[in-house]
């Protein structure tokens, strides 16, 4: 059996091992490739920069732990920018299993880093079921959908919510989304009815779908995958897990391209021999 035939019948466990090494070695020995900026990410940052202190930013945590490696760093970075600019943050989520992620992000950024006060500077209403219908109700009357926060406090008792009644009181909304319900519902049902500034952070696999909404202006910006999160970390000047992950992702992508090229060379050789 020739070497090329052996390669074409490569055991997939060897491929798995190569991927594992390509991902883990750069994590242990960082290379530090510079992260360049993309326009859709810059637009999200620029829009938040234009908001007046005290404006309300709605953040929807529409992902679970499987999407967290890509979306959690983006959540932290956007929160950092919001609290640094003294914006008020209002958190909800359409995925039940994402609630602790939103809570931990608030604990890390709002409480530990910026020493913000719960109820006055930020609130967390946790999981809100109902997807599209919930969003329609939320835009019309927030009190209808968010009657109690995650601690069981009635919405009327939260000082921040005194002047936050409907979509008109929300300066900017962003959904960190990895599927359904998520960005689609925010665009189709919330933005279509109530307009306003809306952006999304998406997993890399989902991001291509949302470029069409950037062109139409339905989205002001898009943070795509771990790369988008790394760009945002650079913008807020706090390198984190996404920046660290860029080296791994770079090497892993190179490996995949290498396998694609190798696979095609073998295919063409086989075709020529036939």
């Amino acid at each position, binding site marked *: 059996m020739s070497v090329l035939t052996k390669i074409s019948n490569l055991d997939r466990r060897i*491929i798995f091992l190569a991927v594992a090494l390509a991902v883990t070695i750069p994590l242990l020995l960082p290379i530090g490739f510079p*992260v*360049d900026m*993309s326009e859709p990410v810059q637009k999200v940052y620029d829009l938040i920069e234009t908001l007046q202190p005290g404006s309300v930013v709605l953040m929807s945590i529409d992902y679970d732990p499987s999407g967290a490696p890509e979306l959690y760093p983006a959540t932290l970075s956007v929160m950092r920018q919001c609290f640094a600019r003294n914006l008020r943050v209002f958190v909800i989520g359409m995925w039940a299993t994402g609630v602790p992620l939103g809570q931990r992000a608030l*604990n890390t950024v709002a409480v530990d880093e910026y020493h913000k006060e719960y109820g006055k500077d930020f609130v967390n209403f946790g999981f809100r079921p109902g997807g599209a219908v919930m969003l329609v109700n939320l835009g019309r009357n927030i009190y*209808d959908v968010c009657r109690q926060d995650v601690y069981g406090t009635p919405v009327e008792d939260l000082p921040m919510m005194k002047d936050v009644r409907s979509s008109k009181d929300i300066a900017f909304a962003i959904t960190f989304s990895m599927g359904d319900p998520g960005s689609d519902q925010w665009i189709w049902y919330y933005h279509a009815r109530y307009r306003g500034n809306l952006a999304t952070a998406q997993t890399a696999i989902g991001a291509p*779908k949302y470029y069409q909404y950037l062109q139409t202006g339905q989205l002001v910006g898009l943070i795509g995958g771990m790369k988008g999160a790394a760009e945002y970390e650079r913008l807020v000047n706090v390198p984190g897990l996404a920046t660290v992950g860029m080296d791994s*992702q770079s090497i892993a992508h190179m*490996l995949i391209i290498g396998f694609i090229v190798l696979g095609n060379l073998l295919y063409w050789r086989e075709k020529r021999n036939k």
Partner: protein
Amino acid sequence: MKRQLPLAIIFAMGVFTIVTNFIPAKPVADVNQMFRNWYLGIITFFTFLGTINLAKVNVERTRDRSRDWQYSIILLVALATQLFLGFYKWSPDALREGSPFMYVYFNLQFPLEATMYSLLAFFMTSASFRAFRARNKEALLLLLAAVVVMLGRVPIGSSIWDGFPKVTEWIMSYPNAAAKRGIMIGIDLGLISMALRMILGIERSYMQ
């Protein structure tokens, strides 16, 4: 009657929901709002129903010693544990840092789910080696676009050539957006026709 009544309800609710979109008058909007609130109540109850159903199916699998029944035990134990920790003292303390619920979530559920999702990278690499072939001109074009986007999406791409991110953004903004838009319009036309079929009682498979 068993068939006619659901069809009548679907017809009435479907027509009402469409019509109310064009009538912003308060009484109509209020009734629509009431129906939406009912929907939210029903959806919330479904979460409870789904949990009961999940438990029932797995108890039966364990009892009947079905294939891989051991995994059902793990599921039931995990379900019961997280439910107990979530409702511990029947208070919202579960979401405070350091609570048993948060501990289990971040030290068990988080790594397990993230690991499952990350397995995609392994299978995608294996599949790209075996199946991503330039068999014709269209496939070659797709392959080249994929390679450019993969390079443009990571910092090493711009280190090789600073044009990769720009070409990637162009591919995303124009050919990709055009294709996605076409697909979306097709899907939405299909959805509209399916909704009309259901409202008019032509499509009845959901009743079986």
